[in-house]
């Protein structure tokens, strides 16, 4: 007889809320880390947005200059951030600056979580076990939904408190204070906006399966934003603009002193209906049964069976094309607005002088200059995160025990590491190529210089490869599953350092840790060889260190 060991532990008091006492509690338990990350990231964005206002626009005159400049921006640029409402106040500026962008970036969480909460488990087979218990399908679906919604509420509570803190810390002029109730009500809207695309993914996941539901959710997430933002670009976009929930709720900014509760109610109603559809469809369909949509597959992509390099590249190609297309579309929209932007800036001497002081090497009469100014920082974050997702695919070989079989062939560990690593780098290359094509398509018709933005795109890719190299080194030395999180953490830390570092008055030595401080202004044709060399060394060196590390450690640990 085996000595009896306590397997079933006594439930702790809080396990009914977060723990293993129910489907809801486990869902919340599984979401706790994501909730904290999203909450603090959202709060950091708000603090980072508030800090420069307090530092750079600390007098009523400067605030007025800011208002004049921003309201003079072309409609297309105003669309990116929404209408500037009461931006002379700290709350007004924050809600304008982050109100549209933040729910789009962080809404990824809801899309990924809600597309997978049922469909992902169904694909793994664990949902069969869950459904075979005494809980009804409806109860399971509702509890899982509730788990995510509560986690999202926790994240928004954290963000709301940090938004309130931003008002307390950075208020320098009358009207800058942000009441706690207004902050919490504001982040409630952000939470609903984040939930909306996730609710669409949830509604279609029982029919389309997880990965396609993610695609539909992302399409909704970014599509609604772009439709709303660029409705002034074409009559078509203008006609469909009102379908976007960003358009509905654009007038609801409590921290700017304006409210439009009916629009929030409408959004809430839509979200509830979508979630209810998801629950109803899940109740009625076979578990794990997915409607095949063969016409949706990207045609003509090679299957990659000749070796580790092409195998990984073939697996990465669809996501590399999607990342490149998404970021490229954004670049194209920015570049195509360059002329209008330049004209407006030229009409606003104050702001153009300010930009010239900060970026002396940028020619604002060129689309490439505008791309450097308005696109590069965002693109650097996206390129880095794309590289991290490619690393996650690379790591799956070891995590899912495929590597055991691969390495039982005459392929050595070093050869596999180098070749599959080059596959990741090639994936980043595909991303860059697609991005460059969009940039060319947008810049060339304006007669602008295409060399600089294309080279800039390549340098973006090189920097992303450098971050991937760091991930490789961690994955090779310790374990593959660390590669993507380490790379993503470095990418996000660099982005936060770039956006928040100066406002926090960090020493130059710390600020200089960001590789983007050493790349010049590559989109605008100014290059810094130091940063380029560092990125190349990180990419190549990381790959070699990772291969060396894999050679020394146990596989699959």
């Amino acid at each position: 007889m085996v000595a009896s060991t306590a397997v079933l532990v006594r439930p702790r008091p809080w396990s009914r809320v977060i723990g293993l006492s129910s489907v809801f509690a486990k869902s919340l338990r599984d979401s706790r880390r994501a909730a904290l990350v999203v909450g603090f990231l959202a709060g950091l964005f708000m603090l980072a947005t508030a800090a420069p206002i307090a530092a750079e626009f600390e007098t009523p005159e400067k605030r007025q200059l800011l208002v004049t400049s921003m309201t003079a921006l072309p409609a297309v640029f105003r669309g990116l951030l929404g209408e500037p409402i009461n931006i002379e106040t700290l709350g007004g500026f924050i809600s304008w600056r982050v109100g549209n962008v933040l729910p789009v970036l962080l809404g990824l969480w809801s899309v990924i979580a809600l597309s997978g909460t049922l469909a992902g488990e169904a694909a793994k087979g664990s949902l069969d076990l869950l459904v075979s218990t005494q809980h009804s399908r409806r109860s399971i679906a509702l509890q899982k939904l509730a788990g995510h919604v509560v986690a999202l509420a926790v994240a928004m509570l954290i963000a709301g408190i940090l938004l309130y803190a931003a008002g307390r810390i950075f208020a320098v002029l009358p009207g800058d204070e942000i009441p706690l109730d207004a902050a919490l009500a504001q982040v409630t809207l952000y939470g609903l906006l984040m939930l909306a695309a996730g609710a669409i993914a949830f509604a279609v996941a029982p029919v389309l399966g997880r990965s396609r539901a993610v695609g539909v959710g992302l399409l909704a997430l970014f599509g609604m934003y772009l439709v709303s933002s660029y409705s002034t670009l074409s009559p078509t976009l203008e006609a469909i603009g009102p379908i976007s929930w960003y358009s509905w709720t654009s007038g609801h900014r409590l921290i700017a002193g304006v409210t439009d509760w009916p629009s929030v109610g409408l959004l809430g109603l839509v979200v509830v209906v979508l979630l209810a559809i998801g629950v109803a469809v899940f109740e009625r369909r076979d578990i794990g049964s997915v409607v095949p949509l063969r016409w949706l597959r990207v045609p003509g992509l090679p299957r990659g069976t000749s070796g580790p390099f092409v195998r990984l590249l073939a697996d990465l190609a669809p996501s590399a094309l999607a990342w490149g297309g998404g970021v490229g579309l954004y670049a194209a929209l920015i570049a195509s607005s360059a002329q209008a932007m330049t004209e407006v800036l030229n009409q606003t001497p104050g702001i153009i002088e300010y930009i010239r002081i900060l970026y002396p090497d940028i020619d604002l009469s060129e689309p490439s200059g505008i791309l450097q100014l308005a696109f590069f920082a965002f693109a650097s974050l996206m390129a880095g995160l794309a590289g991290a997702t490619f690393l996650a695919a690379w790591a799956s070989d070891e995590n899912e025990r495929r590597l055991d079989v691969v390495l039982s062939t005459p392929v050595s560990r070093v050869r596999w590491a180098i070749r599959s690593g080059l596959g990741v780098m090639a994936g980043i290359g595909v991303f860059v190529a697609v991005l460059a094509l969009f940039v060319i398509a947008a810049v060339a018709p304006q007669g602008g210089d295409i060399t600089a933005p294309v080279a800039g795109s390549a340098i973006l890719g090189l920097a992303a490869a450098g971050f991937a190299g760091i991930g490789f080194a961690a994955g090779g030395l310790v374990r593959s599953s660390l590669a993507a999180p380490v790379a993503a953490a470095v990418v996000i830390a660099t982005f936060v350092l770039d956006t928040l570092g100066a406002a926090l008055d960090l020493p130059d030595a710390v600020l200089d840790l960001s590789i983007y401080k050493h790349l010049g202004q590559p989109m605008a044709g100014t290059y810094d060889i130091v940063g380029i060399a560092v990125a190349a060394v990180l990419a190549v060196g990381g790959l070699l260190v990772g291969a060396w590390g894999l050679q020394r450690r146990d596989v699959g640990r």
Partner: protein
Amino acid sequence: MTSVIHTEQLTKTYGIHRGITEVDLDVEAGEIFGFLGPNGAGKTTTMRVLLDLIRPTAGRAEVFGIETTKDPVAIHRRVGYLPGEFDFYDRLTGADTITYFANLRGGVDAGYVAELVERLDLDPSRRYKEYSKGNKQKVGLVVALQHKPDLLILDEPTAGLDPLIQQTFFEIVREGKAEGRSVFLSSHIIDEVDRTCDRVAIIREGRLVQVDRIETIRQLAFHHVELTFVRPVPGSVFASIDGVSDVEADGDVLRMRVNGPIGKVIVLAASHGLVDVVSREPNLEDVFLAQYGAHDSPVAAGVDSDGR
């Protein structure tokens, strides 16, 4: 005979967790060697060390006379491996998956692959993620077998297979042996191991507890003995004999369990008016279950009756 697998005091620990301890093992060329043990006993750990997927904490392992940590690629050229747990590429079809691993190896006979696919009744046109558990296992088997390796290392190769395909698989294994190939496999299908393997090792809690030819294991193991006398005989008469246990009296019949040779029991029984003897030889499953339940190691680790 030369060893295709040879380990000396092979030990692998995972931090504070046990892996395997001082495993001494020899698998001869051309034999089918069964590696048995309860879940978590150390079978997979041993196999992964042999393939240099993990490195020994102490001791050494050789495959084809090559130390596993020195030149694993030379070993891998001659080995086919099926892990106990694996997952291939969701987007690839079965055929794509088999092709990929054939390309990694090179020189694979397409005709033999087609034959394997047909014998294992695998539809290679479906995407891997669409396969049932058993069909995924078939893909793994084809990947392991397709290059006709000199040594097959198979971890639970029949898991998920239906009985007919299990039979086919063991036929393929026996054909491999007839061609001079070696097989090192773990399995919980004891009947088939009993019929197919030349020798078995039983591992429990990371230590080898028995290694021998199957028939020798049976001989060395206990027998269920039933003695019928002309009149009732007290069980205590036999209980004092070494190796005798669980004596039960039922009228003129005594039933007992005898470990080792039963000669002494028969001699004593004859002196008490023995009428009939029934001795049931244990099958491998009996031995196996006894070893699973045992708490002390009855056989010196790694030493079999031939002194290997």
